[in-house]
């Protein structure tokens, strides 16, 4: 093959890749726009009545905690004030090396309790169950460190007494009405087995006593970019797949599951790097194998606010882990790929994730370097190189802008016009450096998966830009 032919074919490959991935995203965007409009039209009507009744399904809220002594009390107090008629809170202390357990014992008057703990999904040994003398719906499971969040959540599932299980990160800030909103699909469709809510970035927001008091944008650039990223990921990434029942991930930070189905599929996989995605893929696989009708749904308005990494080290660790987890989750459930009975999951969502999300970084990073190399070697004129570069950036900006538009059409969480303009600016600037950097990290994550990377509890440095007026 001549150099000219190689350059020519390479150009076409990248062009097709970029057009393919962006057409996919735009299709998701379109589905999400229609879905959110439809959802909002009916949601207001249903909310107007706001009735609680004996039919509300009780929920076990599980909070896995590892070395959370600094913030666990505020988190528990906030969760205990959730606006929901019947829920229990199960905090799992996963063998923390700091004073997480003692802090909870002191703050809530915990007493060791002779619970007939039963093991239904695999987890490390439970050392004891504590019950609060002040809050009847609070229990603490103290267990030997299992090395992963999944292991801790499984212990919580074993102790859960209610039909629905809600998993929340210990540092997550749930809006008080989140449980009431997230339970709706279970009431409306009895085949619902899992529901995910939106995760938003808490950096820059004002938090008081574990409650979000004022929404704002962070001043830290990395956190700011992640605000736009999360809008893209949740508002159209998740909302685009949900209406066709092809949602492949419910964030580990906030998800609700039908407990018996969760146990039936084996609970969370403690060896999975991306335990949240692996679980959802496994649920799809097993439900399809058993030919059972089911729904896995995403809702845009139950919101959990979370702390985003503000330094490159933490952010890199997170992205490498996500990519590693994606590869592992797809590999563990590979029988779903082009499965004749798999429907949209097998024929649309998984192929999209495989080509564009898992292996996409190879083409993105390679494309970046080849573009520079071809230009340097004179095989591709600088105007042509600039055009390809412009295409990549232009499509990136378009997608981010459409996510911001969707946010404005639906929830407009950022009330100041200045915030809106900042978000638009970020949608442009993130394409100059940040995207390329994350593509390289994702490529590293891909290689780590190929080498068989393992998972440990993830911890990030708490952001300085979450203003907590505790």
């Amino acid at each position, binding site marked *: 093959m001549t150099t000219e032919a190689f350059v020519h074919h390479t150009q076409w490959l990248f*062009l097709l890749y970029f057009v393919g991935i962006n057409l996919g995203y735009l299709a998701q965007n379109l589905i999400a726009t229609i879905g959110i409009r*439809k959802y909002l039209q009916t949601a207001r009507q249903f909310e107007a009545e706001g009735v609680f009744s004996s039919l509300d399904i009780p929920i076990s809220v599980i909070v896995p905690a590892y070395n959370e002594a600094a913030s666990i009390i505020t988190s528990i107090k906030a969760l205990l004030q959730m606006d929901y008629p019947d829920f229990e809170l199960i905090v799992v202390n996963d063998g923390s090396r700091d004073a997480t357990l003692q802090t909870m014992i002191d703050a809530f008057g915990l007493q060791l*309790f002779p619970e*007939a703990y039963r093991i239904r999904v695999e987890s490390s040994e439970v050392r004891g169950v504590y019950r609060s003398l002040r809050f009847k719906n609070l229990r603490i499971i103290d267990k030997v460190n299992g090395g992963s969040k999944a292991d801790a959540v499984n212990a919580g599932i074993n102790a859960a007494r209610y039909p629905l299980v809600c998993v929340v990160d210990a540092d997550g800030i749930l809006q008080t009405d989140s449980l009431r909103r997230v339970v709706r699909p279970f009431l*409306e469709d009895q085949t619902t087995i899992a529901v995910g809510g939106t995760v938003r970035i808490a950096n820059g927001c004002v938090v008081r006593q574990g409650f979000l008091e004022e929404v704002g944008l962070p001043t830290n650039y990395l956190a700011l970019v992640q605000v736009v990223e999360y809008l893209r990921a949740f508002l159209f990434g998740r909302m685009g797949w949900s209406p066709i029942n092809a949602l492949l991930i419910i964030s580990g930070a906030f998800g609700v599951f039908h407990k018996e189905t969760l146990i039936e599929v084996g609970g969370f996989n403690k060896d999975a790097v991306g335990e949240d995605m692996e679980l959802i893929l496994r649920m799809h696989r097993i439900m399809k194998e058993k030919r059972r009708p089911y729904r896995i749904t995403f809702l845009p308005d139950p919101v959990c606010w979370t702390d985003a990494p503000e330094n490159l080290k933490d952010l890199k660790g997170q992205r490498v882990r996500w990519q590693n987890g994606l590869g592992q989750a797809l590999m563990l459930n590979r029988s779903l790929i082009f499965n004749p009975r798999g429907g949209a999951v097998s024929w649309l969502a998984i192929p999209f994730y495989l080509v564009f999300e898992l292996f996409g970084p190879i083409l993105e990073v390679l494309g970046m370097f080849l573009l520079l190399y071809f230009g340097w070697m004179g095989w591709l004129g600088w105007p042509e190189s600039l055009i390809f570069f412009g295409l990549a950036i*232009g499509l990136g*900006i378009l997608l981010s802008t459409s996510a911001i538009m969707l946010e404005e059409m639906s929830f407009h969480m950022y009330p100041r*016009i200045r915030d809106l303009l900042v978000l*638009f600016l970020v949608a442009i600037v993130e394409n100059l450096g940040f995207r390329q950097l994350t593509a390289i990290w994702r490529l590293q994550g891909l290689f780590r998966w190929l080498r068989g990377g393992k998972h440990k509890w993830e911890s990030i440095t708490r952001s300085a830009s979450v203003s907590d007026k505790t």
Partner: protein
Amino acid sequence: MLDWLLQSDFDTSVTAALWSTVIAIASTLILFLYTLGLRVATTLAERRRVPLIARWRRIFASAVVSDTAGPWSALPQIGRNQQIDILEEWNRTRTTVAGSATENLVSLAQHLDFPALAGRMLQKRQIKSKLLAIQTLGHLRGEQSWSAIVEAVASPNSALSITAAVALVDIDAEKAIPELVPMISIRRDWPQTRVAMFLRMAGSDIISEPMCRALRDGDPKSQIQLMKFAPLMDAETADRVADELVRNSHDAGVLAAALKLLSGHGGLPRIDELAEHEAWFVRMRAAQILGRAGLAEHLPLLETMLQDPDWWVRYRTAQAIAALPFLGPNALHQMQQRQTDPFARDMLGQAIAEAGL
């Protein structure tokens, strides 16, 4: 720049990339301007809406507290672009009041020509308009809208259908409930909270007999669905139906649902058989009702059930035992000590601790 782009003799792939870039940038600009326009429009609309709603809220509030329904005078003119906001506010107020205040609000709505407005909105294609129209017609309690709303109940759209069902109950509960109760087991898409809401609105006097009939005549699937709402019936009728179902049904789901409702005051039919039922959830409900009955004669049966292989049966049994009024802490601890099955012993220990004994 544009001239240069158009005149350049690029390769096809580069030309395609170039035009894709141009389209992407143009689309971005359009979206950007649209979003900004949306923000400006929303802000302006909100500025207009806030005083408008405040003004009409005062008018509706004075209608609510007024001794008479009208005559209505000196009301502000309603512009076409204000109609929806005011109608929504009227519905909000209407849901919060009862009795003669309702008549005042309905009279005011008629004076403002809301029935005709709702009628026009019902003909529109948007679901949002239809929902508001149906809700308004229900709140207006106008019999003349009955057939249009009945048609909406049959809609495949869940929100439309259930809103119409609620509206029918609002207009005439006695006429609506016999039609709606059989639909509860068919329309599984109706949100349960909203079904409970219209049943509660109608009241136990009106719903009990239709529910009772539907429960007796239905297949097990329908019976299970309807039993979820049986606590809304009057207690005596609900207990009677539950008793009948416990005596006659062979479906595990129906038995569990009926046992959950049964008071046990009129005896516990088939209790020995149900305590050994193959479905764990029937055994669990049997344990619960044995606890509710609280009779000494059932203690040996409960003690046997404490050794059940299922955790939930053991748990409910232990709770039932711990709540028995004739067993004090000493007797409970003695019972715990004499359990040879460690699972039974641990579970009773947990129940005793939970009861704080």
